[in-house]
């Protein structure tokens, strides 16, 4: 199964689309907010963590439908189904590949964009930590959504509608952790809950994803 992860990463690097697209979108969304909300720093500062989290979530959402679409079209998915690799493993590897190509870069870049939003200095470590803990869940839930809509014509829109409600706990705990971290009012609770959600998704969703993939391959 590691071979699948390595191949997907190689493909993402060669195609080059994966990395750049997500980061560019993240940058644009974050930079757009002050134009909408206004340049007033006293307004931007408290909502900066929320903006960064929502932007990271949308950027992750953007590249979800490509997770299975390419392999579905060229038959790789069917061949993997009859290979000695468990589909649950395929689901986890696809989620990890998506996280490495999208979630991880977002987590590293987010603090840099904090400056544009005049984020409180105390918030930076918490932002990094919460995104690091939360973005894997975004990828795993997203992989489940991508499996649900593989093969559908206009699957992209439906994928967003299905996945966004599932993102709410992660977004909520993540942004709350940064807010409380910045105010030093005990960010341990939301962080632990965030980590719990992520662990829960990686424990359970691969089975649901595999079931859905087998149904879609019928």
């Amino acid at each position, binding site marked *: 199964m590691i071979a699948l992860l390595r191949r997907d990463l190689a493909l993402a690097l060669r195609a080059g689309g994966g990395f750049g697209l997500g980061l560019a979108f993240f940058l644009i969304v974050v930079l757009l907010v002050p134009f909408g909300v206004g340049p007033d720093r006293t307004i931007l500062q408290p909502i900066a963590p929320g903006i960064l989290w929502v932007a990271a979530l949308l950027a992750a959402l953007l590249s979800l439908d490509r997770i299975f679409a390419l392999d579905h079209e060229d038959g790789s998915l069917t061949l993997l189904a009859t290979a000695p690799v468990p589909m649950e493993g395929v689901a986890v590897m696809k989620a990890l590949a998506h996280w490495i190509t999208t979630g991880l870069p977002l987590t590293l870049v987010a603090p840099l964009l904090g400056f544009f939003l005049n984020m409180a200095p105390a918030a930076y470590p918490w932002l990094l930590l919460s995104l690091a803990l939360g973005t894997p869940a975004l990828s795993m839930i997203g992989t489940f959504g991508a499996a649900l809509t593989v093969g559908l014509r206009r699957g992209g829109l*439906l994928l967003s509608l*299905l996945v966004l409600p599932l993102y709410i706990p992660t977004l*909520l705990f993540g942004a709350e952790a940064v807010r409380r971290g910045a105010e030093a009012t005990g960010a341990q609770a939301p962080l632990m809950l965030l980590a719990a959600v992520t662990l829960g998704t990686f424990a359970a969703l691969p089975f649901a994803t595999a079931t*859905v993939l087998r149904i879609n391959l019928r």
Partner: protein
Amino acid sequence: MSIWEYSNPKKFMDWTAPVVPWTFGLAALACGAGLVWGFFLTPEADKFGSTVKIIYLHVPAALMAINAWFMMLVASLIWVIRRHHVSALAARAAAPVGMVMTVIALVTGAIWGMPTWGTYWVWDPRLTSFMILFLFYLGYIALWEAIEDPDTAADLTSVLCVVGSVFAILSRYAVRFWNQGLHQGTSVPVATGGRTVSDVYFVPLVLCMVGFGLLFLALVLLRTRTEIRARRIRALTARAHRA
């Protein structure tokens, strides 16, 4: 004659034919009585004034919104385990009704919020949970519409329903955790039955709950019958093309 026999489409159509009109009738009766009694005959509550009368819509609708999703979950599991078409179609039929109940709960909750909290929409854990439930209904219905093959659609929506249920419960407590800091919810009783309300309001409320329940049942039976007929049309036309 095990109960599973009843969910064979033809038998289901036979035994539900007389039941639907009766259920609608009883629902109308119960709702009518409950609402009239609650609207006209109950005194003003000290704290809320006359807005307490909204309780006869808000609580039953909220109750049905949650029960509808639970019913869809059970129907989905029955479909996955026993492969009974009727339960899958019943889940599909119940979704729009559950969504309307959620919208009613949201609208009445928001309107009730105005005099109580001074603004229409406040991110109260309960109201927010219903807004999230509404998004789940939307996604569920959209998935049904997006897939041609009925059996694949039934399978995929069943998985979504199970996963969605877990996340809905998760969101319910996440919202309660997130909102505690901002705004303490009112003492207005939560949607489930455990309520502390003086009995002068209680009897009409139970009547309304029964009424909404029967209405939900009637609508689901009606819509399931329609789904079965639509599926039969699809089967007959497919067979005609093949012949």
